[in-house]
């Protein structure tokens, strides 16, 4: 691989945060509210090989699937650039989540109190993977308002996981959620090896 001397070009280091949750919970809305660019969509074309089917019987059954991911960007100083990815809603695309979660600083799990169980798979995934996460309850109009402690209990979350209310349409609200997440991730980071 042709590597370039680092003094030749100075580039920021990319960092990513994920926004997960069930279908229609407001992931792309939140990405759009805080992004400095209009949310973009990128696609991964997957063959059944990437779905983990270990089948060598030939290519005649080969199928392809396209998974779309919405994302936005926030410039943070000269040295880093932050990308926000909405995870694809279909939970069967775990391997796409694996790619997204690799190296991610943390994740926001968006929840809707009318369909709280929709966010269970996301919570389970990040718990299992050890990715720091916070749960943000998107306050939809007309949705029952619960006490945050109740939501926490319903999700059987460990006590140290931050749970907060948000309005995914508002930049100030999304900003607060992301700051809470990064602070949480910072507090959870493994102690550096000596």
């Amino acid at each position, binding site marked *: 691989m042709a590597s370039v001397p680092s003094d030749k070009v100075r580039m920021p280091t990319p960092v990513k945060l994920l926004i997960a949750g069930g279908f229609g919970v407001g992931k792309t809305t939140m990405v759009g509210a805080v992004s400095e660019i209009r949310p973009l969509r990128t696609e991964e074309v997957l063959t059944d090989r990437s779905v983990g089917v270990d089948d060598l019987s030939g290519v005649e059954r080969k199928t392809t699937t396209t998974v779309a991911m919405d994302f936005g*960007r926030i410039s943070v100083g000269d040295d880093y650039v932050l990308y926000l990815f909405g995870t694809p809603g279909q939970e069967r695309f775990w391997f796409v989540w694996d790619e997204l979660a690799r190296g991610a600083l943390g994740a926001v799990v968006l929840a809707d109190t009318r369909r709280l169980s929709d966010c269970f798979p996301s919570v389970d995934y990040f718990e299992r993977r050890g990715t720091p996460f916070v749960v943000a309850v998107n306050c939809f109009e007309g949705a029952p308002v619960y006490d945050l402690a109740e939501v926490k209990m319903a999700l059987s979350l460990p006590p140290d996981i931050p749970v907060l209310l948000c309005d995914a349409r508002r930049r100030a609200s999304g900003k607060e959620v992301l700051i809470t997440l990064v602070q949480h991730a910072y507090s959870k980071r493994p102690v550096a090896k000596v």
Partner: protein
Amino acid sequence: MNPDEQLYDEQVVRPYVISRGRTEARANLDLISLAVAIRQPTGLEVGLDPEHLAIVRLCRRPLSVAEIAAALDLPAGTVRVLLGDLLDSGFVAVQDPQPEVDVLDERMYRAVLDGLRAL
């Protein structure tokens, strides 16, 4: 492009034709790996397709694999293959994200928090 248009926009040239059948990028690029052009093509190079040239033009400033893919309306995998070519031929430089084990850097957390607070 709005999502509805994308739904119906049948791609005339299949992605694997653009990448000449290759699906494995030599460079293991992340969706957020940044690419920037470090040399401009003269137009006389052999083996550079229009998509290669489009990437070099786009990358006058650092752009992520995901952004390049969105701008050119190509799957991210195809962009990885093309970027691998451009990396090999010295037209772009790439900045990968920090490896997971290094996501401990206090400076990074501070920069990200400051950037978010300034939103």
